[in-house]
Every structure is written in C-alpha cells, then in structure tokens.
C-alpha cells in the first residue's frame, strides 16, 4: 500500500501541472473568436473598388481587417452583420483608424463597383465594398473557404438568390488570418478581441 503512495502523489502533481498549464494556455488564448492556430498568411488579393480602381489587401498591413462576404440584394443576414459592424466602428472610438471593414461580393454579376461601394458606405463611410470579375473573385472565395451557390429555382422578383457562408474573418496587422466569427457573434466579443490584439487590454 505504502509503495503506491509515490504514484498517487505523482499523479496528483501531474494533474496539477496540467491544470496550471491549461490556465496559462487559456489566459494566453483569451480571444473569443475562433482562432487559426497557427495563424496563416491571409490570401492576398486585388479587387475592384467603387471608383473602378484596384484595392489591394496588402495595403491594409498595420491595421486589423474585418472581412465579410455577401451581396447587395441580400436583405437580411448581410445588412444585419454590416449594421452590427457599423455600431462596432462607432464603439472602436480612437481605435477606429486601426480597423478596416471590407465587404466582398459573392454576386459580381449584379454588384458592380459603384453599387457595392455605395452599399457598404451607407453603413459606415469608412467601409469598403469590393467586387471584380468571377475570375478575380473565385480564388478569393476559395482561399477563405467561402461557400456560394446561385439559386435560380426559388420564385422571386429578384431573379435569383445567392446562398452564401456568413463567417466574418479577422486579419491581424501582420497580414495573418487570425480569427473568425460565426453570424450573430455579439459585437462586444469582436471589440474585445480587437482591443486584445492591439494590446489595449492586458493579456
């Protein structure tokens, strides 16, 4: 019986060490979004902005980029998310200049440069709406794992609907795909993560 004691004590110590390690890891990993571990370089792209000029993702290096995919005919999920992001932009306060929201279309046929740019700006003057040819957009959709499917079967005056994934991507100032969020994530969570990332909150 006594011989077993060192094993039991060793087991308890091991459990304590694991628990301590877990606490340390979860403290370091205090982000609320889903983390890319390790962060991967965000797929770099050139797309078309409102004035017809090229917008380069790499130009936003040094800032946090919130990347969302949708389309301007989308009446529900897309405006709900963009409206949340516009409230977030207000709450960012002095961090606002360190964050850029990009809204990339999944419907290039209807979303011409001026249309998606005006649409994005209506939520916040700083938001950038982007489109391009299907050839330009396809690798972007694929790289971020964006699912899109044109539905021409449903009877609607819109002509067709686009089913699409609704994840929001956060790219860190170093240009890495760092976090993502599901639809309906409270904006407080995103705000928390941005503050943590920009070292406004203690880790």
């Amino acid at each position, binding site marked *: 019986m006594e011989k077993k004691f060192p094993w039991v004590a060793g087991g308890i110590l091991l459990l304590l060490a694991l628990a301590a390690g877990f606490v340390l890891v979860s403290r370091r990993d205090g982000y609320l979004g889903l983390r890319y571990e390790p962060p991967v370089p965000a797929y770099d792209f050139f797309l078309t902005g409102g004035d017809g000029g090229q917008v380069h993702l790499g130009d936003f290096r040094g800032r946090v980029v919130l990347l969302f995919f949708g389309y*301007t*005919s*989308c*009446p*529900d*999920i897309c*405006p*709900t998310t963009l*409206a949340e992001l*516009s*409230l977030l932009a207000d709450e960012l306060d002095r961090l606002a200049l360190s964050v850029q929201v990009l809204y990339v279309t999944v419907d290039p046929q209807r979303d011409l440069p001026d249309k998606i740019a*005006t*649409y994005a700006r*209506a*939520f*916040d003057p700083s938001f950038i709406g982007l489109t391009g040819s299907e050839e330009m957009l396809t690798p972007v959709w694929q790289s971020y794992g964006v*699912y899109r499917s044109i*539905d021409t079967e*449903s*009877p*609607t*005056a*819109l002509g067709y*609907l686009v*089913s*699409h*994934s*609704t*994840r929001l991507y956060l790219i860190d100032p170093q240009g890495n795909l760092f976090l993502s969020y*599901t*639809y*309906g994530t409270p904006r407080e969570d995103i705000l928390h993560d941005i503050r943590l990332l920009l070292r406004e909150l203690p880790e």
Partner: protein
Amino acid sequence: MKNIIKASVSILLVACASETGTLTISDPWARPGQAGGNSAVYMTIQNPIPVEDRLLSASSDVAEDVEIHETAMTGDVMQMAPQDHVSIPANGGVELLPGGMHIMLIGLERDLAAGDEFTLTLEFENAGIVTALIKTRGP
C-alpha cells in the same frame, strides 16, 4: 335540434374566423435602404383568437415587389427561401426577426433613411387587410 346546434357552431366559427382587426402588430420596423435596392421589414404579429391565421402577402408603394422570405442557416451558410405564407398560430404569435422570417422589399422606389415611415399593407387569410406604419431604423 342537432342541426340547429351544428348550424350555430358553424356560424360561431365563421364569426371568429372572419373577425378582422383581432391581430396585433407590434414594433414593425425596416432597415434603411437605397432607391433601387432592397430592404426587409420585421415585426411581431399576435393572434389572440383560437383560429389560426395566415399572412398571405404584403404590398407597399415604397417597393416594386414585396415578398415573404425566410432565412435559414445551415452551419455557416445562409439560404433565403421565398415563402407562400406565414402561419400565425391560434392564441399565439409569430416574430419576424433578422436571421429568420422577414418581409422583403425589392426594388425600393426611394431611399429609406433612419426615421422614415411608410405604410405596408398586409393581407391575412382571416383578418383580411391590415395596414401597418413601418418605421425605418438605423443603421
């Protein structure tokens, strides 16, 4: 006698079913939108009578077309599906909310800015025509 009871029961049912103005529509609001674009209307509809009702269609002079749609989420993917009607359960209610059932305004005739109001005409199977004043709410 049996027939008389039957007859009065059916009259009673018809009276209930055709009663108008029994539905309560609360907090109807729409998202801002741009002329030529789209928007969505949300609201809560309460049906206090013991007969199910159905929202069959809606129309408004602010949009070329008005349709009833439901957003469904499968994992991360959202899919919109036009609906033939919205059921409003007897002694119950239904909520039209972002991410769920909504009334879609297609082809806005003019800009809708926060604070703007417009009239939406709703057609119910039992309650008939009900008009609601919709408030546009930002952002």
